[in-house]
């Protein structure tokens, strides 16, 4: 147990709160301290994938022991480091707990190193030790891979954080958490239609350029970014604010399955049965920004959780991009304020193409012949809508094209295409069953791969434009 012994020897598990970036994340959990974890060593262990659970805590391997320990309510990175430092390994902690006078011996061991173990926490560890085989069996049955900070596959970007999460529960391809390029796209759950469209365009463009899209699987911006990446066949990583068994929001369970099916991963630092409680989400946000080279904030209200992600991003020394918005729209207040508070740190995004340029992703996968002008017009980034619509009937293509920049009602579709309402409704069903259109209460928007395209910039529509469009028919 090279790594843990080292951590214990450094004795740095006692929390020394790091100042958050001023003014934004004042309310977050002070669970940060200089990293007690060593860099990964060649001796890092990984568990054989086909291991079968056996009875008794002592027969667990070390990775599982860590998983069992972090599942105990009250054990965070700091306490885990203290226990490992005191007893040498996770297995030793569990076997001590399972042995005679477990709680007392645990407390003594921690006290010997100058720490203190709460009596109730000691009893919880004893309980966990007894139920360990069942938990491990369940984790395997759920197809969840456990990565500890000692695993070779543990995301290198997270290792760079102060006090990274000691254990990650990963569903899907663990390679997705360690990609060449990864960009987080986050924003408010109460997104506007426009915000979701922008998030989709960014997710699609990043995916097409070969970057992994990291987000939080929340409804609103997060979901739109994930869905666009999935639709482009790209890899995307969803970081949960709860355990895998308590996936939140439930409405995105299907999206999570799709993410896994397309070679992405769903990640949580929480044990499978941890429920979604308010405190878990700021911690989740730290992992989101920590897994990415840069974070893009699409829409944030004045007190949005996305701002916490932004402050983690800056604190972690990663790049933070912000989509500016109209000053009279609630969902843009947080974004605009970030730009004002952190000039030079938070960077404004004038367009998807410029974002890719700034991220250095343009060269990676931009179609041949893309010049800077076409980039600026939003043509050459992301999937090509005409390619998606190739082979479709005239009515379908016409309707889909209207929906590319923004969602529309049947009235607007009739005005724009000239087709009869009944025809358009049938066309919408066809597009919807192919996943290219999403319908919500009489409004139809681009969906799937279409939502991942970059909409061309258009003049703002005003009432007079409507009149002109009508009279021009």
């Amino acid at each position, binding site marked *: 147990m090279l790594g843990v012994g080292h951590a214990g020897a450094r004795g740095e598990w006692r929390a020394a709160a790091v100042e958050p970036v001023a003014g934004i994340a004042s309310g977050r959990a002070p669970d940060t301290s200089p990293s007690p974890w060593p860099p990964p060593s060649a001796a890092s262990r990984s568990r054989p994938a086909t291991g079968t659970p056996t009875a008794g805590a002592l027969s667990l391997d070390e990775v599982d022991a860590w998983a069992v320990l972090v599942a105990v309510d009250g054990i965070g990175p700091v306490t885990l480091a203290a226990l490992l430092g005191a007893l040498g390994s996770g297995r030793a902690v569990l076997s001590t707990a399972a042995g005679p006078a477990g709680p007392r011996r645990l407390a003594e061991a921690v006290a010997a190193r100058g720490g203190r173990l709460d009596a109730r926490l000691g009893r919880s560890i004893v309980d966990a030790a007894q139920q360990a085989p069942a938990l491990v069996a369940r984790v395997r049955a759920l197809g969840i891979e456990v990565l500890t900070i000692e695993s070779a596959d543990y995301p290198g970007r997270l290792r760079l954080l102060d006090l990274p999460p000691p254990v990650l529960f990963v569903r899907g391809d663990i390679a997705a958490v360690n990609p060449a390029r990864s960009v987080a796209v986050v924003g*408010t*759950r*109460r*997104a*506007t*239609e*426009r*915000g*979701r469209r922008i*998030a*989709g365009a960014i997710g699609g463009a990043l995916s097409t350029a070969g970057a992994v899209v990291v987000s939080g699987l929340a*409804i*609103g911006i*997060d*979901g*739109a*970014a*994930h*869905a*666009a990446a999935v639709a482009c066949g790209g890899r995307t990583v969803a970081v949960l604010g709860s355990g895998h068994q308590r996936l939140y*929001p439930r*409405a*995105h369970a299907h*999206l999570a399955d799709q993410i896994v099916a397309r070679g992405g991963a769903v990640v949580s630092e929480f044990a499978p049965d941890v429920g979604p409680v308010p405190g878990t989400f700021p911690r989740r946000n730290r992992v989101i920004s920590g897994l990415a080279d840069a974070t893009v904030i699409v829409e944030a209200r004045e007190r949005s959780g996305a701002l916490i992600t932004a402050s983690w991003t800056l604190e972690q020394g990663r790049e933070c991009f912000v989509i500016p918005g109209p000053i009279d*729209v*609630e*969902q843009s207040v947080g974004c605009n304020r970030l730009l004002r508070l952190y000039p030079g740190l938070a960077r404004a995004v004038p367009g998807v193409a410029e974002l890719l340029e700034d991220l250095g992703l343009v060269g990676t996968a931009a179609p041949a012949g893309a010049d800077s002008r076409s980039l600026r017009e939003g043509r050459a980034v992301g999937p090509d809508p005409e390619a998606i619509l190739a082979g479709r009937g005239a009515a379908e293509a016409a309707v889909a094209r209207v929906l590319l920049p923004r*969602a529309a*009602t*049947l*009235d607007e579709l*009739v005005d724009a295409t000239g087709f009869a*309402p*009944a*025809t358009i*409704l*049938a*066309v*919408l*069903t*066809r597009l919807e*069953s192919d996943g290219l259109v*999403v*319908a*919500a*209460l*009489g*409004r139809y*928007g681009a*969906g799937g791969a279409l*939502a991942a395209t970059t909409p061309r910039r258009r003049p703002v529509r*005003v*009432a007079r434009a*409507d*009149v002109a469009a*009508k009279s021009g028919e």
Partner: protein
Amino acid sequence: MLATVLAATLRGLEGRPVRVEVDVAPGLPGFTIVGLADAALRESRERVRGALRNSGFVHPPRRITVNLAPADVPKAGSALDLGIAIAILVGSEQVRPNGRWAMLGELGLGGEVRPVPGLLPMIVALARRGAGRVIVPADALDEARLVPGIEALPAASLGEAVELVRGRRVRGRGPITRAELIPDEAVVRVSPAPADDGWPDLADVRGQAEARRALEIAVAGGHALLMIGAPGSGKTLLARTIRGLLPPLDPAEAQEATVIASVAGEGPVRGFVTRRPFRAPHHTASYAALVGGGPRMSPGEVTRAHHGVLFLDELPEFDRAAREALRQPLEEGRIAIARAGGAVEMPARFQLVAAMNPCPCGWAADPSGRCTCPLGLPDRYAARISGPFRDRLDLWVGMPRVAPEALLAREDGEASAPVAARVAAVWAHQVDTRGRIAGRLTGRALRAACRLDSGAERAAIRLADAAGLTARATERLLRVSRTIADLDGAERVAVRHLEEAARYRVPATAAAAERAG
């Protein structure tokens, strides 16, 4: 002396003949009514006493016993007043009757004879019993004369009724009554249903092409329709245009509707009801108000909407029990009410049209993201509509808010008249070819009506699979596509009809936008 007069009482929508037997006997003065009389009927003593005195007769200071036969049938209401008064006059030998008489009417203290609810079915019952003539309140003569095979003689007052019973024809009005000093309630309320003007025309609805289309399909096939949209998107306006789109009642339906109108007691009926009813109870309406009941087993909104439309605005705000009680009538076209006094069954074959906001604040799924409800609440709001209830709603349509400037820029929509003509044509076609409108097709009849060509069959299976439709929801899809095909003049249901029908299926709910990301 014993005197007998024929009258009737009401149970549900049916009249039942009642023999009013009065014994005026020597003894301590008193006035007793026996025979399961309800509160209104027991108070009849006071009305009869006053009417007798103020019409120039004597309330005999003797022992008066009124028996209402058959004794085991509960009797309700004031329609027996006139019969009791005349029987007392005959029993106390103040009047010598010319033959046997049947009569119905409520008495005022001044002797006026007033209309009563349900006169029509009560007279029908008397006619079936073989009564050849019946004295009715003069104000309700039109209603009484709708019944063939029985002579209805009007009496505006007890005095006129006495003249009729004595065998003299009455001319002019009877003695001076309070009615001439203060306008009689019944006289004031003579105008029947509200005039047609005041009801909106489809031309008043701008935009909302999808909801207009769904409404036309719903009315053409008699399908249940649910409109979901933000406040001010025009749900209620659109629903109220339905009145102008419905085809007129056929004669058999008109008879039923007229009986219901008579029993509903909104003033005497002036003639056969020919327009389909449109009922819009408020969401605070009680269970009894919706399904019917009460001591007189009076018809509820579901029965008053028989052969017409029941519009429930703010559907989730209705009392859950009341809402769930609509399932039986939606399925069977009738409502059974069981109370302590016995069970009654009333017809209730209505088309349900409902409207709701997508969430309590009303703004879920608005592109502005301005919904202030806690996240997840819109889903729970929609979940107030139970699964079985959802299954009975054939068409769901979302109504996005139309921006005011877009509204002004838009021309008036198509007017009601051409839409009503299309609806009437489809309605007639459906009844001619299949015996019933598509909204009432089920099971084998539905499958026979919707025989699909192989392309459409595959499309239907694909659509049902893609949307994860249940068997019942698939049936709903077929029903709606049948009406769409009929509107299209197509004999067979084609793929495009199915595809359009699929637009109106269930979760156009608030959360859909969010789910889609």
